[in-house]
């Protein structure tokens, strides 16, 4: 029985990683949900958009690192982030002009847009692999900690250590700032309001004189920013690998659907739901249980519900449950 140690172990292995991962998923899901709300299709290229934005940021980070520019205690990547966003936004606007605009003018069915986005996904995936290669890239200029295990133990005298990586702290802070800015933009500014109006009722919005091309352009810019930020935060926290970003599509979509497609607040709730379930179900609870339970009840095995290889299964099962019992998601999104 050692409740304090149990709490520390729980925070170290479950809560902190899940909060960081949840923020990353929430930012990704916000991008998916915005495209769904405004452009009305599920964008399969979103994972690769994240990879592209991250790649641009990484290349600029490397440039800064060789040039000796650094951000002090913060990762250099944060300095490079605005440039990465700009490059990603440029690509998004180009893609929209060259590809999606044609189908919008035709008023093509949503599923045609989805297939088109598959083509875009292929090209972006190829582009990223072509430029930076398919391998793991680290760009976080070394591991740095806000609280390291040793200082924490020295400070509290507990057996269990607690570590908070700088990247985890930055993830959460950035996510909060970005989400606050996004909600301010959507709810308070004229452009944001016109976007919401367009999302609610396209014809009415057109009648009120809202320029659809402008709304679409602003959406792509925001999506590029969200995708790049989500991708860079994920890459800083773990590492950058194009294929992993492609696979992130599944938890991100699951988060957006669980929250309710088209609902920004739902995307955030969905992101954290998925992240917490994934981490908690694939975590081996033995350590926490050993501290929290009396010796006689302590588990023999790892007390792990599912092996970490099945983390996709967790997002999938949650998705199925929501689809079966509440098809519009937690926060009623659009049910077209």
């Amino acid at each position: 029985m050692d409740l304090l140690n149990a709490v520390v172990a729980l925070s170290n292995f479950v809560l902190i990683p899940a909060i960081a991962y949840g923020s990353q998923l929430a930012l990704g899901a916000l991008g998916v949900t915005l495209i769904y709300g405004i452009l009305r299709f599920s964008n399969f290229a979103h994972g690769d958009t994240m990879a592209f934005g991250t790649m641009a940021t990484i290349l600029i980070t490397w440039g800064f690192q060789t040039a000796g520019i650094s951000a002090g205690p913060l990762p250099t990547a944060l300095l490079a982030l605005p440039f990465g966003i700009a490059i990603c936004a440029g690509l998004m606007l180009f893609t929209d002009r060259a590809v999606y605009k044609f189908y919008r003018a035709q008023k093509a069915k949503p599923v045609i847009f989805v297939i088109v986005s598959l083509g875009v996904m292929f090209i972006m995936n190829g582009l990223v692999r072509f430029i930076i290669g398919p391998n793991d890239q680290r760009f976080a200029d070394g591991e740095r900690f806000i609280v390291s295990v040793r200082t924490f133990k020295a400070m509290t005298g507990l057996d269990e250590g607690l570590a908070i990586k700088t990247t985890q702290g930055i993830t959460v802070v950035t996510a909060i700032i970005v989400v606050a800015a996004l909600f301010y933009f959507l709810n308070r500014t004229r452009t944001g309001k016109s976007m919401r109006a367009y999302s609610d009722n396209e014809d009415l919005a057109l009648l009120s004189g809202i320029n659809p091309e402008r709304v679409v352009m602003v959406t792509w810019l925001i999506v590029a920013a969200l995708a790049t930020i989500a991708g860079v935060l994920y890459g800083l926290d773990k590492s950058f690998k194009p294929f992993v970003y492609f696979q992130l599509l599944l938890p991100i979509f699951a988060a957006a659907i669980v929250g309710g497609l088209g609902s920004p607040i739902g995307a955030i709730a969905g992101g954290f739901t998925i992240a917490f379930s994934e981490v908690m179900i694939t975590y081996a609870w033995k350590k926490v249980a050993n501290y929290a339970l009396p010796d006689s009840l302590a588990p023999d095995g790892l007390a792990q519900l599912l092996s970490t290889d099945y983390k996709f299964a967790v997002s999938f099962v949650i998705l199925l449950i929501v689809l079966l019992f509440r098809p519009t998601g937690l926060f009623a999104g659009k049910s077209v």
Partner: protein
Amino acid sequence: MSDTTRNIAYFGMVAFLIIATGFIQSWNAALFVLNFGLISAIMALGVNLQWGFAGLFNVGIMGFVALGGLATVLISMDPVGEAWAAGGVRVILSLILGAATIVGAILAYGALPKGQVRNIGMIAILVIGFFVYRAVFDGGVAAVEAVNPANAGYLGGLGLPVLLAWPVGGLLAAGAAWIIGKTALGLRSDYLAIATLGIAEIIIAVLKNEDWLARGVKNVVGLPRPAPYEIDLQNDPAFVERVAGLGLDPVTASTLWVKLIYAGLFAAVLIGLFLLAQRALHSPWGRMMRAIRDNEVAAEAMGKDVTARHLQVFVLGSAICGIAGAMMTTLDGQLTPGTYQPLRFTFLVWVMVIVGGSGSNLGSVLGGFLIWWLWVMVEPMGLGLMNLITAGMSEGYWLRDHLLDSAAHMRLLTMGLVLLLVLRFSPRGLIPEK
């Protein structure tokens, strides 16, 4: 130009491309393209059934293909007697328990009145069932995997002829498709897409991690073959004499002969499935499917059960992908779960269907061959292009090395470009639906 001459021209072009590959590279390479082209054509037929006939958006093809591959192992490998004795029964028992838990929960959901009691009851059944299942399952798995882990460590198969695995692969895929269809069909089309994307990843995760089933990433190698082994042919005096008459050396001749046998088998399956798909398309059932695809509301008003028909065609299409998956694993002679990539097995098949012409069976077959040929050939062509671009650069210049290394990634770029160009300028594909 009439449709028939156009189609003949297209397939003549495919034949020319394959034969040209034979002359320029080697006949082994040409037969490799042909065999995988046949398999790709079958996959494209299956997807066309779902997308072209019924407008269902399935992005989990990889999962069904992998299930077909699993069927090959489960049918054709010899059973591992020791493993069965050690824990096989226990594993099977636990799986039955797991299935019983889910069925029990579903029955309880139907039987109990709506409200707290039902929720708590269902959760209780699922949680208790899960722990009982894990308790039985874990011990069994540990016992099975401990049996001779270097060569076996799994339950093995049934030791039946490998050709039987093809229909069984279809059945396995059909079963999985039924479960997904039951939950995700009838909801929005995007949901089916996400659900299939998810189930495909899960099937691959299961294949990679459940060593007791098919050895996971340790791979099952040496699957029985429906064709003779090359080495036996080379040691067979009658064969050597016959090929000597043709002026070929026995080693090349034996590899070509084996590939030709596979090609014959695959072609027979493709022709059979193609004829069936054609019959289905031109039957009242096919017309009903297209009517549902073009206007669900109208079809429903005419008394058609849209969800049930969608489920039917989804299961059928997935079964065809399962058959193709079993054939592919048979051709490879091994099951390697690590090689299943969604870009290669799901999205490439989509490119085939769209380029060939959605809704047209002949188009899917054409797309299967054409896109597969392109997929194989883009790499050498990309390398050639890069050699040309970098010809003027000096040896060891970083951009030169980078471009040459990256030539392999030209594939994805090309496929995306082909897909977008076809969608834009010829959205109905090379052989449009009539």
